[in-house]
């Protein structure tokens, strides 16, 4: 039987596929948005999808210490918070110097 058939319980494959789709949407947002805050939204979605796969593996896969996936997810959330703080401070600083946060127009380092 295919693992994708909707039987009585959630399986690891379904969780991983939801995570993959969410990661793809986040990647699309991060690649196509012109606003720097929009790009950051995509990155946060990608980190969120990775957390979902961590928790799915922790819940479903045989392991001597299954709680380690949760600890890893907590670390990912910590790093995401630090990264969001620094990135948004960069956005405000760039707006102060360049009067725009359009990432297509912040091309000072272009060769």
């Amino acid at each position, binding site marked *: 039987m295919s693992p994708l058939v909707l039987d009585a319980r959630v399986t690891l494959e379904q969780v991983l596929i939801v995570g993959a789709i969410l990661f793809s949407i986040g990647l699309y947002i991060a690649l196509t948005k012109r606003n720097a*805050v929009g790009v950051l939204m995509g990155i946060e*979605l990608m980190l969120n999808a990775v957390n979902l796969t961590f928790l799915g593996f922790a819940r479903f896969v045989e392991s001597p210490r299954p709680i380690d996936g949760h600890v890893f997810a907590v670390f990912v959330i910590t790093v995401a918070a630090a990264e969001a703080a620094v990135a948004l401070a960069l956005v405000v600083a760039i707006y102060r110097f360049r009067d725009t946060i359009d990432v297509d127009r912040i091309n000072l380092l272009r060769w």
Partner: protein
Amino acid sequence: MVIAFWTLAALTLGSAVMIVLTRNLLHALLCLILSFVGMAGVFITLSADFVAVVQVLVYAGAIAVLMLFAIMLSPRSGRDNAANMLQLPALVLCGLFAAGVTFTVIETDWREASRGSFDTTAEAIGQALLSPFVLPFEIASVLLVVAMVGAIVLVREDS
């Protein structure tokens, strides 16, 4: 549990798609918060109660408010949610990525455990953070301090 999982997953994915489609950056931010909250619900269906609470606190609370401040501090004309020229290549790339991961997920044998759901996770996470993961835990605290100081230095007005 299956109905709850699929409802919350559909909420999360639907609001993530709405971030792409909506024209206003503030509406995109509201969709992002909805996506984070739906993802916290998905975490609860995976019996990850502690991570779900942290998700609501940090993502839907702190990061969303930070983004709101960044949007409000940027010009009104910069609040559109327009896309750049990369739409078609990005769509192809993301479709290929999702298809590749889905294929791998279905084709791999994951050695699934018959163990049931966790009862509570907060106690076990706390003990894991303080015995095998002490060093990463301390490094994370240093990272948070450095990020906070860095953010303050970046936006400080030079007098």
